[in-house]
C-alpha cells in the first residue's frame, strides 16, 4: 500500500506515447511549412484569392445552352469508350485474376511475378497511359480505349483475385465427392460464390472509367475532354461551364444507377 501512495502518474499517457505524438506533429508541420514554401501556397492565400475565384465563376455564368448540340456526340463517344474498355477489361481480367490468386496459382514465382507486374501497372496514372497510346496509335478514341483497358485491368485483377482467394472451398469438395467433373465443379461451386462480386466490381470500374474517359480527351484520346481542351484554349468559359455541368450530371446519374444495381446484387 505505501508503495503506491508515493507514486503519482505523470499524465494521462505514458511518456513514450507523448514523445511519439510530439515528434509526429513536429514532422507533419515542418513538412507542411516546407511544402507551402515550395509550392508557394498558403491556405491564407485561398481567402485572399477568393474574390478572384468568385470573379471567374461570374465569367462562367450563364452557361451557353446552345452549345449542348455540340456536346452530345462527344459525350456519347465518352460513354462508348468507357463501355467498350470496361467490357474488354473484364474479359481479360478473369483469367489473369486466376493467375494472381494464391489458392489457384500454386506456383510461387508465377504468382509473385503477376503481382509485381500489376503493382507497377497500378502506379501509372490513366492520363499518362493515354499519352503513351496516343503517341503510338495516333489521336482518337482507340487510344483512349486501350489506355482505359490497361488502367481497368490493373484494378480489376487485384479486386477479383482477392475474391477468389477468399472463397469457401468446401462446396467444391462436395461436388467432387458426388462425381462432378472439373468444369461442373467450377460452374456449380465457384461461379455462384464469385459472380455477384465480379459484376459489382465491373460496375465500379465502369464508374471509374466514365470519370477517366471524360478527361482523356485532354491529351487527344477521344471523348468530351477534347472539346473541353479546345474551349479552354479559346477562353470560351460559358461553353466550358456547359461541359462541366454536363460532366457533373453524367457522373452523378451513372454513379446513382450503378450504386443501385450494386446494392441489389449482394
Amino acid at each position, binding site marked *: 500500500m505505501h508503495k503506491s501512495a508515493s507514486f503519482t502518474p505523470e499524465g494521462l499517457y505514458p511518456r513514450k506515447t507523448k514523445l511519439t505524438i510530439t515528434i509526429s506533429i513536429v514532422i507533419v508541420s515542418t513538412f507542411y511549412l516546407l511544402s507551402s514554401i515550395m509550392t508557394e501556397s498558403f491556405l491564407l492565400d485561398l481567402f485572399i484569392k477568393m474574390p478572384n475565384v468568385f470573379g471567374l465563376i461570374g465569367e462562367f455564368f450563364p452557361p451557353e445552352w446552345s452549345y449542348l448540340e455540340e456536346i452530345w456526340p462527344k459525350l456519347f463517344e465518352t460513354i462508348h469508350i468507357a463501355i467498350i474498355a470496361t467490357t474488354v477489361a473484364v474479359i481479360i481480367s478473369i483469367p489473369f485474376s486466376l493467375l494472381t490468386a494464391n489458392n489457384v496459382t500454386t506456383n510461387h514465382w508465377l504468382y509473385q511475378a503477376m503481382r509485381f507486374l500489376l503493382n507497377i501497372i497500378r502506379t501509372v496514372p490513366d492520363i499518362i497511359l493515354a499519352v503513351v497510346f496516343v503517341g503510338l496509335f495516333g489521336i482518337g478514341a482507340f487510344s483512349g480505349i486501350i489506355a482505359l483497358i490497361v488502367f481497368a485491368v490493373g484494378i480489376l485483377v487485384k479486386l477479383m483475385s482477392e475474391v477468389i482467394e477468399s472463397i469457401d472451398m468446401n462446396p467444391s*469438395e462436395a461436388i467432387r465427392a458426388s*462425381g462432378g467433373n472439373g468444369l461442373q465443379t467450377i*460452374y456449380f461451386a465457384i461461379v455462384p460464390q464469385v459472380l455477384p462480386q465480379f459484376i459489382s466490381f465491373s460496375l465500379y470500374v465502369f464508374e471509374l472509367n466514365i470519370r477517366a474517359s471524360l478527361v482523356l480527351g485532354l491529351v487527344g484520346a477521344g471523348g468530351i475532354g477534347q472539346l473541353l481542351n479546345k474551349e479552354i484554349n479559346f477562353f470560351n468559359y460559358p461553353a466550358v461551364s456547359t461541359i462541366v455541368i454536363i460532366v457533373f450530371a453524367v457522373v452523378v446519374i451513372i454513379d446513382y444507377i450503378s450504386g443501385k444495381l450494386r446494392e441489389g446484387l449482394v
Partner: protein
Amino acid sequence: MIEFKDVSLVYPNGTEGLKQVNVHIQEGEFVVIVGLSGAGKSTLIRSINRLVTPTKGELIVDGDDVLQLNNKQLRTLRTKVGMIFQSYNLVRRSTVMKNVMAGRLGYTGTWKSIFHLFSNEDKRLAYENLQRVNIEDKLYNRADELSGGQQQRVSIARVLAQQPKVMLADEPVASLDPPTSHQVMKYLKQINEEDNITTIVNLHFIDMAMEYADRIIGMRDGEIVFDGPVSQVSEQTFEQIYGRSIRDEDMRGGMKGA
C-alpha cells in the same frame, strides 16, 4: 461391399494417416467410426471415395479397386458413394433446389448441366428426396437462409439424389446442437434401414455412437484398435480407444432414447 486390405496412407509431409488398415464392411451395415480428432477417422472415410489417395494396399468398393481407377471411372464411383460433411458444404448463395441438383451432376453431361437442362425425372427425384427429409417447403430458398440443421438435411437430400449404394458422413453433427444432432442421425438411420444403403459415420460422441450404430470401429493413431458389434461395447472399450478416461465432452446428450 467395402474392403480395406493392408491400406496405408502417408501424407506428403510425412504424417501417417493410415497404418495397415484391414476392414470389411457388409452391404447395408450402419458403421460408426469413433476416435479422438487426428486418429485417422476422416482419412479412412475419405479414402473410400478417394478424396485422399492411400499410398499402399488394396481398397475394394462395390467390386472395384478404388486405387486403380482412372478419372472417369473415379467419377462413376463417386456417384455411387454419397458424402455428408461437417460444414454441410452447400453453395450458400444458390437455392436449395440447385444444391440438391448438384447430386445429379455425375449423371449429367457438362453442357447440359451448365444450361440447367436436367430431366424431369431428375427434378422429381430431387423433390422427393427433399420431402423425405421434410424440407420441401424451402425448395426455392437460398441455402444461407436456412438453419444449420436444415442445411444438413438439404445435404442429405443432395446425397440421396445421387441414388448411392454407400453413404459416408464425416462428423455430420459436430456443428449442430443436441436436439438437431439427433434429428439428423435419425434421418441417416432411417435411410440406412429403408434403402439398405451402407452407411459409415465418423463421430466422436460416445452416446450417439452407441445409440445409432450396428457396429463400432475404434481408431487411434491411424490404426484400428477396436472392431465389433455395439453389443460388445462398454465404457472400458471407449477408454481403450481414447487412451484416457471418458469425459463430459465425449457425450452429446439430448433426447436420449426418445
